[in-house]
């Protein structure tokens, strides 16, 4: 598998670390209920298909990336920097 880093270009997947689902947003500090926190920490979708997920280009430019990958085929539809992902509609 190769990931086309928006900064560096296409690189082997071993340059990156997988950090999981990009969707969960941390509940707001001390106001969050225990249930909301438990959801945030433990609950993940497990889709057969398109998945937006975080990858870290640790052996390259040290950027956090949001990769849209098909979990059935590993086909990558999009790779965004965090800044691009934040500028777009939150997932």
């Amino acid at each position: 598998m190769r990931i086309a880093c928006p900064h560096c270009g296409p690189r082997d997947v071993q340059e990156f670390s997988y950090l999981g689902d990009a969707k969960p947003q941390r509940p707001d500090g001390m106001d969050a209920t225990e249930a909301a926190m438990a959801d945030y920490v433990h609950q993940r979708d497990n889709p057969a298909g398109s998945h937006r997920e975080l990858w870290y280009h640790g052996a390259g430019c040290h950027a956090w990336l949001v990769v849209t990958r098909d979990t059935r085929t590993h086909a990558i539809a999009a790779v965004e920097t965090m800044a691009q992902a934040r500028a777009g509609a939150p997932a």
Partner: protein
Amino acid sequence: MGEIGTTWTARGAWSGIVAPGVFSASGAGVNVQLREGLGIASLIASREQEPMLGRALESRLGLSLPTGPSAVSSASHTLVWAGAGQWLLVAASRAGVAEDCAGLAGLAAVALQSDGRAVLTLSGTMARKTLAKGCMVDLHPRAFPVGMTALTSIAYIGVQLWRSEDGPDGAVYQIMVPRSMAGSFWSWLCASGMEFGLVVATGQD
């Protein structure tokens, strides 16, 4: 205090690791120049600081800050892109680099790296073949032209690699590794280049 200080001796990043000489099964396909005495600083700027940092460097060094993976050089300095909003300033001599950076206060997070990195220059007809044994980045001249840089890993060692002006034997690569990894990097380079013949020299450029 001074008594203790006198037992410490400054030494180059490659000293005790590799000395000038020939490491060869046969031939002399790879030239290695151990770069000593470079002045190196890392610069990190926020998106707001970046244009001001660019102007300051432009007026001091006459170099424009690369916004993508490239390296730009003058006779005395090189600016290398090192990630989004990050650069390395490499000066031919370490003497002036602190002065170069003094003018950047408030425009970037600046850290001197002259003692923190080890740099060598790789050239020769078999330089690219040697790098291909450990580098996953495509170094074909079409994919990696003069002035391009890559942050990648070679033999699990993080490297900053860039291509400077061609020499008599074609492509010339500059390779920078963390100083603590210099020994491991040399052990990979020596093993990989041995079949082509490595000629190691030391010097400024």
